């Protein structure tokens, strides 16, 4: 169990993380999701003891980590771009942790074999790390981080330096490895796909603070702010008028009780359309009661493999996107009718920073 409270981190006068609270339960995979420069790597370095906190406490399994050197903390950290020791072989890299922990030779060898088997690299022991491909290096780095059996495993953008295809493949592999380990994991990334597919819980980080935490489904269905919505890939964000009982959209009025609400006030509020809330409405189908009808013009058509993505301009001047799956796909310039599910209209909390 990792518990971080009131943590403030700074480089010189620049505050990188401010009054942050975060916890990860035993065996949980917690993803810290945020744009580059939001302080998420610094957070990991602080937990590892590589950056001294300005204020705040970090507890791991009830033990206060303050004042402990990195080598006394019993945590594992897999670095961005892996930081493999270039002067050592695969086995020597993985053996480093167990060896400096004072294990005897047989035990070290055992740990190396286990760790490499777990990441699917058995038999590569004597290869030099320079000869490895990007994906192999990533696995060696993971094996090296888990070989000392840390109480907490932290991964800093582990897939960041790999190409897209490799990312996808390793993303399928990683959950298995992490669940076999059973260790508490803190996984830092800027990629929402990675976070959504790996995490038990996600903490979205922005400029040194946690903006929102929750399970992937909770975040996906209920982003609290425009920042979280945007970061998860929910767009566009648009403005609406709302009072206590009614929400006025450019396409009609709906009762406020029916829409999804993250805690918006009244007056001008911001909103997003939750995934699947918008669809092309066949012209012959009459609008349902719980739907709003939008008339829009197709301006772009992007081929996405199994579907097409249409960019649309509404009469009210909004830009929307919708997936067109099969059957009759409208051309650029066509006017189409869209349906918005009222429950998929999500009002966002007021964001003082916007």
């Amino acid at each position, binding site marked *: 169990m990792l518990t971080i409270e009131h943590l403030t981190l700074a480089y010189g006068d620049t505050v990188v993380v401010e009054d942050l609270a975060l916890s990860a339960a035993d065996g949980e995979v917690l993803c810290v999701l945020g744009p580059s420069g939001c302080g998420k790597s610094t957070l990991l370095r602080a937990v590892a003891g590589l950056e001294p906190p300005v204020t705040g406490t970090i507890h791991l399994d009830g033990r206060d980590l303050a004042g402990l050197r990195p*080598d006394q903390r019993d945590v594992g*950290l897999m670095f*961005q771009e892996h930081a493999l020791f270039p002067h050592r072989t695969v086995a020597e890299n993985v053996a480093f942790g167990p060896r400096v922990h004072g294990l005897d030779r047989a035990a070290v060898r055992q740990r190396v074999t286990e760790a490499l088997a777990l990441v699917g690299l058995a038999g590569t022991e004597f290869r030099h790390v320079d000869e490895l491909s990007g994906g192999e290096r990533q696995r060696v780095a993971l094996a090296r981080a888990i070989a000392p059996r840390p109480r907490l495993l932290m991964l800093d953008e582990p897939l960041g330096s790999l190409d897209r295809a490799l990312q996808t493949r390793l993303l399928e592999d990683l959950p298995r490895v992490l669940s076999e380990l059973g260790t508490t994991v803190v996984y830092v990334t800027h990629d929402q796909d990675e976070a959504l597919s790996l995490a038990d819980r996600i903490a979205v980080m922005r400029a040194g603070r946690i903006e929102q935490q929750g399970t992937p489904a909770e975040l996906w269905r209920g982003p609290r702010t425009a920042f979280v919505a945007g970061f998860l890939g929910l767009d566009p964000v648009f403005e609406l008028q709302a009072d206590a009982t009614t929400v006025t959209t450019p396409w009609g009025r709906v009762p406020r009780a029916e829409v999804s609400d993250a805690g918006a006030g009244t007056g001008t509020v911001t909103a997003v359309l939750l995934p699947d809330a918008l669809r092309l409405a066949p012209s012959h189908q009459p609008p349902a009661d719980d739907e709003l009808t939008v008339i829009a013009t197709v301006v772009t058509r992007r081929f996405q493999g199994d579907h097409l993505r249409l960019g649309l301009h509404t009469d009210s001047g909004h830009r929307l996107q919708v997936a067109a799956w099969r059957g009759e796909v409208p051309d650029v310039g066509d006017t189409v009718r869209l349906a918005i599910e009222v429950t998929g209209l999500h009002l966002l909390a007021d964001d003082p920073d916007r």
Partner: protein
Amino acid sequence: MDGHGAEVTDGTASTEQRTRRPRPTRRGVPRGAALALLAVPVVFLGWFFVWPVTAIVGLGLAPDGEVELRVLTRALTDPSVRSVAWFTLWQAVVSTALTLVVAIPGAYALSRQEFPGRRALQAAVTVPFVLPTVVVGSAFLALLGPRSPVNAALVAVLGEAAPTLDLRRTVTAILLAHVFFNYAVVVRTVGGLWSMLDPRLEDAARVLGASRWRTFREVSLPLLSPAIAASAAIVFLFTFTSFGVVLILGGPGRATIEVEIHRATTQLLDLPLASTLALLQLVAVLSALAVYGRLTRRAQQQRLVAAARTRRPPRTRGERWFLGANLAVIAVLVLSPLAVLVERSFVTATGYGLDNWRRLLVDDPGSVLAVPAGEAVRNSLLFGVSATLVALVVGGLAATAATVGRGWVTGTVDRALMVPLGTSAVTVGFGFLIALDRPLDLRGSPLLVPLAQALIATPFVVRTLLPVLRSIDQRLRDAAAVLGASPFRVWREVDLPIIGRAVLVAAGFSFAIAVGEFGATVFVARANLPTMPVAIFRLLGRPGVANFGQAMAMSTLLAAITAAALLAIDRLRVGSIGRF
């Protein structure tokens, strides 16, 4: 000959991308052109290096025209020669080891820790490296003599009964001076690589459970080994062939081969002995260079990051303590000799005053020099400028040939030009004296001084220019060409601005070396045309407070000139001074 054949990346490109990207090849320069560029350096090296050295070998092996190994074996079995060789070897080994022990922590402090004044201090510790050996000798003479501040401090603490510390003419003095002199070589070479090592490698080791010391031993040290080996080899060469420092600080039984060559030539007038010693020295130096070449070739490709990203202020108490300790070492070891030198230049028979400086710069009644002291300054500057021009032409052509040439041309030029660096200056000077009567009798010519100095400076010019020339990305030239630039225009707009600063650096560096050159100059300078180092040596050889004071004043002036040259080029940030 780069200390660590490694490439700097911005830290974002993956290793795969870097190693698999095909390197654009250079085109359009036929081998003939590369060889033509080599003509001047080859003639220069042949005439002023190979020929004199051959003459020395000839004199050693065949004094009467026939090869007589008897002379050689006699000299080699001579106990005094053997004891000189032994002293030379062990003091070089100990000096090198001491320098590494003191300077490796310093390299970390100056390259990985950020603190106010770091850049200025880094420049300051490099100053000793370009200081003339004679100045280093004088500074330590002043620092370690009976009236030094060290003794003043002892008296202040312990009272009149305090023992007087006089380390002049001891091995300790020589070793200290060698550490002072070579500190920068290790700090620059090792620190240069250290500042670009990915700090996450050390962080990773720490998080995996290794202590600081273990991290240093198992991660940093192996990764730094190419730079450590290269700098150790260079320090060994410099201390093995140490001349000015040992001549001034050493004494009976404390002479290096280099000093003995000088003594055999000028005092014993035993040229065969001098030749044998020079031969011995040459063999030792060539072996050391071969080892150096092997060590630097082994250098592995490493993933490096931009230096600025690895530096950070000390944050824990341990880190602050470490920095403080290193700053103290620098203050005591590197800065105090310079401070004492300046202080002594103001000491006269009647207390502090400007007499030494007045005699040096204004008028000079009853000097031991054949000429007014001011003339030595003028001679030094004139010779220095001429030597710089020669070294730039020779070194520039050689470096260009080594860049545009292919295969053996590059490698051979690279290695051949390092040989004079390792060969002793005294050997060069001695060789000039015995060999340069043919084809032109240059032995009485004042030209000999700048020629000798240029020979010593040329390897440094090549070392400065070659990495820069090689680093110019062919794709830059390609891009300029595709955008419509003619070959000349490409050279003018791409190559020239990039090498421009390196040429200035090379010029400043060779000027500093030429002005301070002593070993070769002391042989070839005519009595009526002394340079500053020669004048300092003559002044130090005479008794009297006035002569000593004047030597200190001239040393201070010489130190100021070389330091100014160094600091001027340091601002250009090409950053290769003292780095191997």
